[in-house]
Structure formats: C-alpha cells, structure tokens
C-alpha cells in the first residue's frame, strides 16, 4: 500500500473510531477542579517529581541539595530567585522531617475544599482525608455517590475509580482492617 493511501486511511479511521462519551463525564471532571487552583513553582515541582519517583528520602535530599548548590553557583549573588531557593530549602527541611506529609497536606487541603463544594451537589459525600494511611495507595481519601447508584472513589495516590456499592464496602473493610491492625 502506498504511503499517501495509508495516511488517507488513517485520517478516515479517526472518524470511524469516534464514539459518544458518557453523559455527565464532563460534569464529574468539573467537580474535581480544586477550589484553589495553585500554580506551583518550577523548583517545587522538581521536589514533587522526586517525591513521585519514590526515591528514598536521603537520595531525594541529596539531589535537591546538589540542585540548590548548582543554582547558587549560577546565581553568584543573592537575588529574588535565590529567595525562591530559600523557600524551597525550607520545604526540603520540612520534607526531610515529615516525609510525604508536606505534599500530602497540600493535596488534602484541596480535596477538603472540593469536598465542601461537592457536599451540596452530590449525595453520600464522605471524606477520610487525614485518617487514611499515607503509605497505603489503596486507602480511600474520599468518595461520593453517582446518579446511577455507583460510587466515585479518590484513592490515596490520587487515582479515581467508579465502583459498585459492594466493591466500596470491600474497600472500606480493607481500610478498617488496616486501621485496626495499627
């Protein structure tokens, strides 16, 4: 088959593989827009990436300290950017002392806002937030009931899933079991 023919067919395939999206999906996504849409600094994002990569705390700290020294070398003198470095260093120290809870506190604050907003629009809104085990990616941060009777669940690692009431009960039992173990 010739190249141009193949390209032409691929273009047509796009039209043939268009399917309708579930009604209400856009509404669900809009409900998850955080109340505070914060723009994080580049350096703070670097920390988040390092945290997301799940490097050990000491390795992450070493990488960040090296980055700060490189920054300082480039800047030569104290400047506004250096102020940002200072702020980020404080976050680094916080991170070193309290681990994942720095980024987590920020996420939980946004989720709390989202939860308050959702409370009057959706039924069965339940927020677990800080009581969820930070090390357990299956722990539930919050859930709410959808019009079709299923539940929308946000997990600790910020993944979301629509589950049946039965699955939700299983997840809650699992969480409760872990909680009792502790």
């Amino acid at each position, binding site marked *: 088959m010739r190249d141009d023919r193949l390209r032409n*067919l691929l273009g047509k*395939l*796009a039209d*043939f*593989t*268009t*399917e309708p999206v579930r009604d209400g999906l856009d509404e669900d996504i809009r409900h*998850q827009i955080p109340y505070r849409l914060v723009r994080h600094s580049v350096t703070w994002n670097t920390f988040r990436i390092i945290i997301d990569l799940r490097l050990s705390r000491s390795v992450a700290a070493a990488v960040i300290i090296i980055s700060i020294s490189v920054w300082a070398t480039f800047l030569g003198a104290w400047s506004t950017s250096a102020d940002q470095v200072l702020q980020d260093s404080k976050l680094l120290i916080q991170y070193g002392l309290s681990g994942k809870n720095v980024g987590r506190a920020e996420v939980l604050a946004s989720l709390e806002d989202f939860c308050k907003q959702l409370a009057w629009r959706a039924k069965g809104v339940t927020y677990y937030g800080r009581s969820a085990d930070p090390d357990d990616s299956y722990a539930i941060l919050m859930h709410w009931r959808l019009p079709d009777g299923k539940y929308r669940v946000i997990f600790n690692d910020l993944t979301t899933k629509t589950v049946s009431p039965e699955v939700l009960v299983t997840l809650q039992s699992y969480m409760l079991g872990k909680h009792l173990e502790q």
Partner: protein
Amino acid sequence: MLKKPKSPEHEAESAHRIDKQPSIDTKDDELEDVQDWLAERLREGDRAAAARLVEMYYQPIFLYMRRLGHDRQESEDLTQESFLNAWYHIGQLKDGKALASWLYRIASNVSRLYWRRHKGTKIVSIEWIDAPEDRIVESGNSSEYEQLEALRQVVAQLPIKLKEVVVLHYMQHLTIAEAAKAVGIRQGTFKSRLSRALKTLRKQLP
C-alpha cells in the same frame, strides 16, 4: 460492524453540513485565541478557565485513551485522572500554543503508568461506533471498509510507542511539533517513530 451507504437524501444533507462549516484558517485562529486566553487564565488560577478546558478537551482525551487501547470504563477513569493531574501541574503550562501538548503529555503519562501497573491487561481495539456515513457514500468503495477494518486491527496491535505517535498525529490531529511535545521526544525522533510505524502498518496490511 460496518455501516451501509445511505440514500442520496443523506448525501445532500451531509454536503449541506460541510458548506456550513467555517474555513479552516478562521477555525485555527479562533482556537489559538481561545488557547492563549485559557493558558493565561489557568496560570492565574481561574476555575472558570479550568471548566472551559474540560469542556474543550474531555472528549478528545477520552477518545485518545480509547484509541490507545483502554476500554470504556478505564478510559473514563484515566480521563478524569489526567485532568486531576493537570490541576496539580498548572505550573508547567507555558503558553496557549503548548496547551494541547501539555494536556496530551499528562494523558500519555497517565496511560503509560496504567499499563505499567496493569501489565498483561488486554488491549481493547476501539469499536466502530457512529461512523460518519456520508463519507462512506462519498467513497462508494466497499473494499475501503475492509481496508479500514484491517487497519484498525493492525493499529491496535502496534507497540505502544508506535501507536502513540500514530494516534496523536493522524487521529487526534496534533501537528508533529505538538505531538512530539506530547510524547516528550524531539521532533526528529517523533518523525522517525512515525515512519517506523507506517512501515509496520504497510507490511501488515494486504
């Protein structure tokens, strides 16, 4: 599966629809303006802009997930996850021109992470739904449907790296520059992957 050609009345109706569409240049200019405005407002933390972004992109991102081989439920979940991630990475958004590639990059990462976490999950080929029948009438060539069906199956079997570039460029209609940014590679590398993908498709198609 494949839909049969429609009557001449439908053909006339579809021709009328095509006449009413704005010219491509106008559409592109308008889109650029909206994207610039959106990017600026998003950087300022405007929730209304975030809602507009959802309105503009939730369907394309959902279809992107479907075309990458996720089933309907997964695609819905991953679309929501992509937007949720986008809200926490607003700081990485540079300007309006980068809006689509920024969002697609997040979506690509979410999809890759999913495959990594769920190794062995069956890749689902997107179904023929709501095929634009006016196009079938235009071509009037039944063997074309067979070719499209074969192509759909071959695309579904492509390795994920090659499938991504084909889907982004030919099905999501991103430019080479945008699509390369969305995958996080250089334009040269993107072109080379695209050519490798086309070669594979050519080999496997009758």
